[in-house]
């Protein structure tokens, strides 16, 4: 009799405990808590059914184009065939010629775009991080005006990049307000270093608040006791910031910086609208590839796109390698309170050691 009176909820869990748990643990998850079966743990078939549409669409819009770009980059341009003198209707296979062009004859333009992209990424992300952290610290402290500040910093985020480019072009106009403020005539939106400065100012305005937001979220989970302990130990404000705040918000900050880097590396709208297409001083790799493609030179365009893709991939890979794989799997932890507690504890200990 006792056997048949099994409560229904254990039955509901049954399929999970038998079929679910062997596959529950992704490699490297040693925490025994994770093996606790979820209420709805179930067959892989349901999962496959639910996940496959997304994977299918992403393969069509991301994987397939990427492979096509790789193939396309080995083909040349339609037009006159130099050997026969006839007009070709198909694109000739040229092997790695597009790439050798990029590193040879067309090298100046490529390297210029490459350095511009790198320069923009390093400078804007650096400035955004500093300004964003400062903003987060102010917001975290300001109890009264917090809602106001938070509403305020969402505004630059909500303005479309293309519109913000137009807005800054207007501000940086030769008769614009930027020149009126500094009382100096600078032709910001013409070729030259000013153009770079204009792009950087506009980009930082738009995205520093975003970093501020993410860092603020990181600050809010730091328990107050850590600061109290440090204060009792006689640590000054600067030391507390350097040895407690910074290490503890590091995970949030790193995610923010990674995402900003990826975004800055593919920068397009801002320099394209603010300064213009084919402007040497601000041309980025994205602009270069888009320009080639819009002139129906798909082969060279694809080669540029492939190189940009590799560059982005390399930076992302280096990031994840240097800083641990935790970056992307971030949400995995949130489902298990035990892990979060342990992590916070580890962070606390780290802070103690540092202080």
């Amino acid at each position, binding site marked *: 009799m006792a056997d048949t009176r099994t409560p229904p909820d254990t039955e509901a869990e049954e399929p999970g405990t038998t079929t679910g748990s062997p596959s529950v643990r992704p490699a490297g998850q040693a925490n025994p808590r994770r093996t606790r079966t979820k209420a709805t743990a179930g067959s892989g078939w349901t999962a496959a059914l639910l996940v496959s549409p997304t994977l299918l*669409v992403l393969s069509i819009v991301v994987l397939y184009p*990427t492979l096509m770009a790789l193939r396309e980059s080995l083909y040349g341009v339609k037009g006159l065939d130099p050997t026969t003198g006839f007009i070709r209707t198909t694109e000739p296979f040229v092997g790695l010629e597009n790439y050798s062009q990029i590193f040879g004859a067309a090298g100046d333009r490529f390297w210029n775009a490459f350095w511009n992209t790198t320069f923009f990424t390093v400078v804007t992300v650096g400035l955004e991080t500093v300004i964003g952290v400062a903003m987060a610290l102010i917001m975290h402290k*300001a109890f009264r005006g917090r809602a106001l500040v938070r509403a305020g910093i*969402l505004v630059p985020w909500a303005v*479309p990049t293309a*519109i913000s480019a137009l807005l800054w072009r207007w501000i940086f106009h030769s008769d614009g307000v930027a020149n009126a403020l500094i009382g100096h005539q600078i032709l910001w939106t013409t070729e030259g270093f000013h153009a770079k400065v204009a792009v950087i100012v506009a980009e930082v305005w738009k995205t520093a608040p975003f970093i501020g937001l993410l860092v603020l979220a990181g600050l809010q989970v730091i328990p107050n006791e850590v600061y109290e302990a440090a204060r009792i130990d006689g640590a000054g404000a600067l030391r507390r910031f350097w040895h407690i705040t910074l290490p503890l918000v590091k995970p949030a900050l790193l995610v923010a910086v990674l995402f900003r880097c990826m975004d800055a590396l593919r920068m397009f709208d801002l320099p394209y609208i603010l300064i213009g297409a084919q402007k040497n001083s601000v041309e980025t790799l994205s602009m270069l590839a888009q320009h080639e493609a819009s002139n129906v030179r798909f082969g060279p365009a694809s080669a540029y796109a492939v190189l940009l893709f590799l560059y982005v991939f390399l930076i992302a890979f280096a990031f994840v390698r240097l800083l641990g794989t935790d970056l992307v799997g971030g949400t995995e932890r949130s489902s298990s309170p035990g892990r979060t507690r342990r992590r916070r504890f580890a962070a606390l200990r780290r802070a103690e050691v540092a202080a």
Partner: protein
Amino acid sequence: MTTTARWRNRLLYVGVVAVVAYCLAPFYWMLVSSLRRSSDIFDTSLFPSTVSFENYRAAFDPSQGFTKALLNSLIVAGITTALALLLATCTAYAMARLDFRFKRLILTLIIATSMFPVVSIVVPLLKLFTDIGWINTYQAMIVPSMSFALPLAVWNLTTFFRQMPDELEHAAMIDGCTRGQAFRKVIIPLAAPGIFTTAIITFIAAWNEFLIALSMTNKPGMQTAPVAMSKFAGATQFETPFGSQMAAGVLVTVPLVVVVLLFQRRIVAGLTAGAAK
């Protein structure tokens, strides 16, 4: 209150004002400029001497095609958001609730796709769409937009579903629901705020898109609002119509800003979901 504390308070106040000013000043400038008369567009006073809606009329001048562009933007961003949400809800539910092999790997891959340089998918798709005659169609803009909208929606919704206790479905299933029914009747209604927030964030991302819309269209009638605005023509070739550009910019941005301010708490939760935990 000690003097140092009072000073610290004042300093904080200055900081708050500085942050708000930094964020809002350029936006304010757009608003003010859009309300100036075209004769005093180059004024640098803080308020327009005469408030005029001349620039707004100019933005809606039929020759600019701005009304059609707004409609195009709505269609493209709207359909992109709807499709992305539909697919992402299923996937995110599986990610949050079911246990299966390669889950971590799949989630990592989906998030990684959102880091792709858009141009490296635009170039091959541009060639493909040229071949199959899709240039100047809505689908030519919607399909590539899925590359960033879908990962964004999956990522956001997964976090939202994870925050909901397992016990809810558990209870529904004890009461005789299948998992599918539990999902439809219990989870979806309860997750509605999360889905709504995700929809806003995805819509804003799709609404802000420029590179795809620029590359896939060459007919003015098919361009989205940001592209059309960047091509606004002045009276002469050498004149940029800043006034009507600012007016159009206000019109394109203000609805977003209003929505963002109304739902700021939720949007902040959505945006910071991945980073803080």
